[in-house]
């Protein structure tokens, strides 16, 4: 058969047993990429979709025009939020192994994606997270115990037992309800941003979705609408290289980058080192400043690596080399920010250990408190009759009848 007629199926450079190979990830030295003015015309920003914006170099020093020049307190707040996220993830993974929760998803290795971007936005900006953005919830001050109660589907569950673990929300903190269906939040974020302009409010929306789910039609809709109406929205594509077992090339095809889809729609697209707290912060600030000036949306591709499994139902050793995470060329976001702060003499191993201890105690205490409201296997249980509420604003007659029928079944 002629090679022309063969179906081209993209595949990753390494599978289990192979040596990890990230030579396909185009890197740029920290500080080497120019920073156009946030009001620049799209063609003048186009190079940003091919390069890789980085601030922290290999010796953890901040370099170049994208250095956001953050004070030590802000950096320490970022470190703290990422550390909390990681400890929470580890503890909840253990809770799953202990059979206390049914399912969990970690964000290990990509904590900067939520924390740095979230810190660069205003508290009134509306966030449309993916399921791997727990850092946003901590950042906005949702209590740890509240998140845990959601995972436990217990009597204090914000979702009243209706949602898979990690599909949190908080209207008060402007964190949109996470869907189990991928990428649906991206065009919704655009609609939210359109409404902000219609109402004459200065707030932005920001959405996060994985590189795999950019293949959904919803992302195409989001790009078309964001571009047409110049919606004040930041469209984050978290390229963590893997969509369950599917290599990023299946969604990318032969595209030069996911960020390159921005300029194709007339919006800036920026490819940024997603494990570089300072770079993610700076790029988000740039996009936010542009949006607040009425110049519309920016597509941000955050290049990172999903160091953990997709979920507790996944076993990545079956489809990728075990040593991939340690071979990832952009390192670990937590370690990099920590070393940067130590280099600035604003942090130390001792202080870090103390922080680790403090946050571990906090998470353990919160877990104890959350379990008092019930777990999968231990009472109390939420009232099953509440399942009929919130289908509609007012319960219609057929649901009232079904609720009464269930009450009878339950005796």
């Amino acid at each position: 058969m002629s090679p022309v007629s063969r179906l081209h199926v993209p595949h990753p450079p390494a599978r289990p047993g192979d040596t990890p190979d990230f030579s396909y990830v185009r890197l740029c030295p920290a500080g080497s990429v120019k920073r156009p003015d946030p009001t620049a015309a799209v063609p003048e920003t186009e190079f940003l979709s091919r390069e890789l914006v980085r601030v922290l170099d290999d010796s953890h020093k901040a370099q170049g025009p994208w250095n956001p020049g953050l004070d030590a307190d802000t950096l320490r707040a970022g470190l703290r939020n990422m550390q909390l996220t990681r400890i929470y993830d580890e503890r909840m993974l253990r809770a799953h192994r202990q059979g206390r929760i049914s399912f969990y998803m970690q964000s290990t290795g990509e904590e900067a994606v939520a924390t740095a971007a979230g810190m660069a936005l205003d508290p009134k900006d509306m966030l449309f997270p993916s399921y791997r953005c727990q850092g946003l919830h901590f950042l906005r001050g949702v209590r740890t115990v509240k998140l845990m109660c959601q995972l436990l589907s217990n009597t204090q569950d914000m979702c009243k037992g209706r949602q898979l673990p990690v599909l949190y929300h908080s209207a008060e903190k402007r964190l949109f309800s996470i869907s189990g269906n991928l990428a649906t939040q991206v065009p919704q974020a655009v609609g939210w941003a359109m409404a902000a302009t219609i109402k004459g409010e200065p707030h932005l929306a920001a959405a996060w979705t994985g590189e795999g789910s950019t293949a959904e039609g919803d992302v195409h809709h989001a790009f078309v609408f964001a571009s047409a109406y110049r919606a004040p929205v930041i469209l984050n594509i978290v390229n963590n290289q893997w969509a369950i077992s599917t290599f990023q090339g299946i969604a990318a095809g032969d595209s030069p980058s996911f960020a390159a889809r921005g300029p194709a729609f007339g919006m800036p697209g920026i490819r940024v080192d997603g494990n570089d707290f300072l770079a993610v912060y700076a790029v988000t600030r740039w996009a936010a400043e542009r949006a607040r000036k009425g110049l519309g949306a920016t597509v941000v591709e955050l290049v990172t690596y999903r160091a953990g499994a997709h979920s507790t139902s996944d076993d990545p050793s079956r489809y990728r080399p075990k040593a991939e995470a340690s071979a990832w060329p952009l390192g670990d976001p937590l370690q990099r920010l920590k070393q940067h702060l130590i280099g600035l003499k604003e942090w130390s191993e001792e202080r870090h250990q103390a922080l680790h201890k403090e946050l571990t105690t906090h998470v353990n205490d919160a877990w104890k408190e959350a379990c008092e409201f019930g777990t999968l296997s231990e009472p109390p249980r939420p009232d099953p009759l509440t399942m009929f509420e919130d289908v509609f604003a007012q319960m219609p007659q057929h649901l009232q009848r079904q609720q009464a029928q269930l009450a009878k079944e339950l005796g």
Partner: protein
Amino acid sequence: MAQMNMIQALNSAMDVAMGRDPAVVVLGEDVGFFGGVFRVTDGLQKKYGEQRVFDTPIAEGGIVAAAIGMAVNGLKPVAEIQFADYVYPAYDQIVSELARIRYRSAGEFTAPVTVRMPCGGGIRGGQTHSQSPEAVFAHVCGIKIVMPSNPHDAKGLLIAAIEDPDPVIFLEPKRLYNGPFDGDPHKPAVSWNGHPQGEVPEDHYSVPLGKAQIVRSGHAVTIVTYGTLVHVALAAAEKLGLDAEVIDLRSIVPLDVETVVASVKKTGRCVIAHEATRFAGFGAELSATVQEECFWHLEAPIARVAGWDTPYPLAFEWEYFPGQARLAAALKAVMESR
């Protein structure tokens, strides 16, 4: 009171709603400058400006998704899908998102979006411009579904839908836009002019969602129907000289079970009629409900009259359409059965 056809009545509903509430916005394909392919949004952009009435890209999924985001941010969007047949690219956003945002967030987020769409055949639309997808949405928990049969109800129901805290799928039988239609395509078209239901208040009023209307009282048989088939049922009952009670459901969800059940208990016979296909159509739900609630009052098996279980064929539109003959045959069978 003014004389309005259904297009003018729907236009007036949006005009009134927009005039009263600055949160109401209208979006959809061709709805802005042009005023919609059926002219339903005519003049609204001129009156309320393009911040509140605007054209969208040809992307039904994007239209509904954007409307959801806008509603979450406090607006009350009225989204037009140009034909009900085009709604399917938005199906995930309607089923998994619009219908469930209140539920999944335990009431913290809501999306009171009205999704308007012309439906039904009789305009030579073929299989892609004639469908009636109400059953496809009726199976989804968390959305209301409305289908008016006349200008008066159309305006009142659309205002109620826009003001409702829940998302509403608003189906507009396009064969009724310009006049009532009794199912006979050979008769000259009639306009709404002079029809009592073409008398429409110019101001604000609403017709409650979830409330059926008895449009003809009778004692011999109950015809449960909605949309275009209301007029076919009235004509068939008249022609047969039957003492039939005709119920116009107006709302598919919530369903006014009480009105239907009271009528069937009175008449003991029931014919269910809709234009959409029969198999697993909304008539199946109606039939099951009537059977469960009225079994000991029934004197004959319940009959269903519907479109055939085929796509809506262009050249055989009138052989497909459930007209007076099909309805009359069902009525006779139900009346003769004992």
